[in-house]
């Protein structure tokens, strides 16, 4: 067995390296870490193979237990019983917690989980801990994910009989760049190098592109461009993508995502069964954890059964005289979770709108993810897309990891003599990136759903007479309210020649490379002859770690509007 090795790579994180130029490039493996389940796949030279663990499982549970001296995860260890994961000693749903601060509603929703999630509501990372021998032992989301990744890496190395360092990971489309750096940090802790972080539905889109390409080769498909909508509802996140596919190229036309998923459905249903659920379990006593685990397992089973039955009877003794005996039918279940389904519908519409695609243009509608068996999910998707049926050619649980493995092979520079790897994904930015300007406004420079790699620039000017310095404050998001967006970093540009306001030209350029690395370049230009006055400043973002809420407030408090920028209306040379 390989020793689980923690090697922390440099501070510059890991992304950004290009494909290796050696004669035998290492084929990157594909990993799909879900909030509740995970899997691992690799291109084996002729096709994608989903690897199995020692218990012959392809789909493993995502959790790490701190019960033993050496923490163990769902890849290597076997749970004696489902309740063991819910004893407080195991941490799961880590993808819902990583890179979030304690003011985030998703973190608050995690406080009812059996392990400890503490929030102080001041915009810092939440405190989390596992219960071991009646002691709450603290850990971090990055550490938990790293332990889990080390197990996955060991499993892959044993089976592939070679060292594994390069990976392609699937991620939710709604993840901010800050969250991506946390994922990269975990990978670095596990000695893994991230070749690509791929939004889940875009991995599915690549698999779809390959399937269409195969159909063309077998003369079954037309070879014309096909447009597909991919909808992924997992335990923690909902993602939608629209892809246009032809000749093995998957062009992502739009992405939309939100932190809503099976966990919300589960919690809503638990609260429906036990209305005072939150107050009962808020103290995390040993008995309380036990009762909440019983309720959680019973509810989970009921939801599964409701996918095939129209009603289900729940009979569970929670101890301490608490008993639940209730019949729940499918209609009630759908009413309880109405908001979750509405959010899904909104994401689908937004994605279609952004792609400038009408439902009639859709050749296929693909449903994947752990919630894909829920009848309401299928119905709402078919309804929104006005389709009688959904695409059948994919395994709903394995599709993302297979796509990630394909991307791993393509991005590693592997080619296949039969043309099965003549594939390409043209990714799109899921969120807009811009700066604070024109007062307290967010001015996007790279809009969401811009094809990557991308480079865009915009010219700004000063807001005050004789202003010689300006603050460049970079945000990511799509909210009009700047505070609602995510602060990526900030720096000051100085040496602006004193002149009346509105005269100096400050050019802000944003560059995203193929590995999704963002760089911001800023230069002060001499109006008229366009030469930079001072050396440029180039910053790789994000630079802000924790406490992004604080930083923005502190900047505002210290500088107010004194270093503000205003967008400069450009006149084209042409007109």
């Amino acid at each position, binding site marked *: 067995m390989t020793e689980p090795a923690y090697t922390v790579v440099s501070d510059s994180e890991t992304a950004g*390296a290009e494909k290796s130029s050696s004669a035998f490039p290492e084929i990157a493996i594909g990993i799909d870490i879900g909030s509740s389940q995970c899997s691992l796949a690799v291109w084996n030279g002729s096709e994608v193979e989903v690897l199995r663990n020692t218990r012959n499982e392809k789909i493993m549970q995502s959790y790490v237990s701190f019960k033993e001296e050496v923490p163990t995860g769902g890849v290597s260890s076997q749970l004696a019983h489902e309740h063991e994961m819910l004893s407080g000693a195991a941490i799961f749903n880590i993808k819902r917690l990583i890179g979030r601060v304690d003011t985030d509603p998703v973190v608050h929703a995690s406080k009812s989980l059996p392990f400890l999630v503490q929030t102080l509501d001041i915009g810092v990372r939440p405190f989390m801990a596992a219960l071991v021998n009646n002691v709450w032992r603290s850990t971090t989301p990055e550490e938990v994910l790293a332990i889990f990744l080390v197990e996955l890496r060991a499993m892959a190395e044993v089976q592939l009989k070679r060292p594994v360092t390069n990976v392609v990971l699937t991620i939710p489309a709604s993840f901010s760049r800050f969250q991506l750096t946390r994922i990269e940090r975990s990978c670095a802790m596990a000695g893994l190098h991230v070749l690509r972080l791929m939004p889940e539905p875009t991995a599915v889109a690549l698999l779809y592109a390959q399937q269409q390409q195969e159909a063309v080769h077998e003369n079954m498909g037309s070879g014309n461009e096909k447009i597909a909508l991919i909808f992924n509802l997992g335990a923690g996140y909902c993602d939608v993508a629209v892809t246009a596919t032809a000749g093995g190229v998957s062009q992502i036309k739009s992405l939309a995502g939100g932190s809503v998923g099976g966990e919300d459905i589960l919690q809503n249903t638990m609260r429906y069964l036990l209305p005072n659920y939150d107050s009962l379990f808020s103290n995390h006593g040993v008995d309380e954890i036990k009762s909440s685990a019983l309720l959680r397992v019973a509810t989970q089973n009921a939801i599964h059964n409701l996918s095939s039955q129209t009603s289900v009877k729940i009979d569970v003794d929670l101890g301490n005289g608490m008993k639940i005996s209730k019949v729940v039918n499918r209609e009630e279940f759908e009413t309880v979770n109405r908001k979750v389904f509405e959010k899904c*519908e909104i994401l689908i519409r937004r994605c279609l709108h952004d792609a400038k695609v009408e439902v009639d243009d859709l050749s296929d509608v693909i449903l994947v993810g752990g919630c894909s068996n829920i009848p309401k999910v299928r119905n709402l998707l078919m309804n929104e897309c006005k389709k009688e049926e959904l695409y059948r050619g994919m395994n709903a649980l394995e599709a993302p990891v297979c796509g990630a493995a394909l991307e791993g092979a393509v991005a590693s520079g592997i080619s296949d003599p039969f043309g099965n790897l003549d594939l390409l994904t043209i990714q799109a930015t899921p969120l807009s990136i811009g700066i604070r300007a024109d007062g307290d406004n967010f001015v996007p420079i790279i809009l969401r759903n811009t094809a990557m790699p991308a480079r865009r620039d915009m010219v700004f000017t000063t807001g005050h007479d004789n202003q010689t310095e300006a603050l460049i404050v970079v945000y990511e998001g799509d909210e009009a309210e700047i505070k609602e967006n995510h602060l990526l970093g900030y720096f000051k540009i100085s040496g602006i020649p004193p002149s009346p306001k509105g005269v100096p030209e400050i050019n802000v350029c944003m560059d995203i490379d193929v590995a999704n690395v963002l760089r911001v370049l800023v230069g002060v230009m001499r109006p008229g002859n366009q030469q930079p006055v001072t050396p440029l400043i180039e910053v790789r973002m994000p630079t802000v770690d924790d406490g992004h809420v604080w930083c923005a407030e502190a900047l505002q408090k210290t500088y107010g509007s004194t270093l503000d920028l205003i967008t400069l209306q450009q006149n084209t040379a042409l007109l």
Partner: protein
Amino acid sequence: MYCDALVSGSTLLFSLSSKHTLLSLQRSTPNHYLGLSETRLFGSTRTTRAAINDGSVKPVSEMTLYELLGIPQTVTLPEIKQAYKELARKFHPDVSPPHLVEEYTQRFIEVQEAYETLSDPRRRAMYDRDMARGLRLAFSARKMCKYDEEIEDRSEWKSRWQNQLSELKRRSMYKDARKDLSWAAQVRRQRNESSVES
């Protein structure tokens, strides 16, 4: 290695953004900002070394969007899409030869922008009209977003979307919202059709 690429990449931003420097491509002179003409610095309009394959020496900055995609002005939308995908397969950094990644990335961004204008019937019609009026519509002149109205478009959508959201929250009936959307879709289609005709 990556760092090197970036340094010379940002040099590119400067030394290549003008026609004057085209003939003497000097990537290794970072502090040498030569004769920058009307083209904006940093613009997505840096000039790379002409169409790489077609034997012509015409610099990208002087190519029309059609020339950039290597297609005649008469092509249909499916042909534009096909040309775009073929060029993407060539220039996208995931599939380009390692020593050409930097140069091809630049080409990819240019091809992408040409495609975005030409694949939108309304924007293509505007571009064609200007070309017919004899304006020299080189890639570099395109720069200012005469043909992109994305920002407006999206903020309009955003407010509509938020209205929908509150609507949904209030009534949890999505029939109305859907009616809204299909109305918007109709308007969009009408707009597209009329711009194709014009």
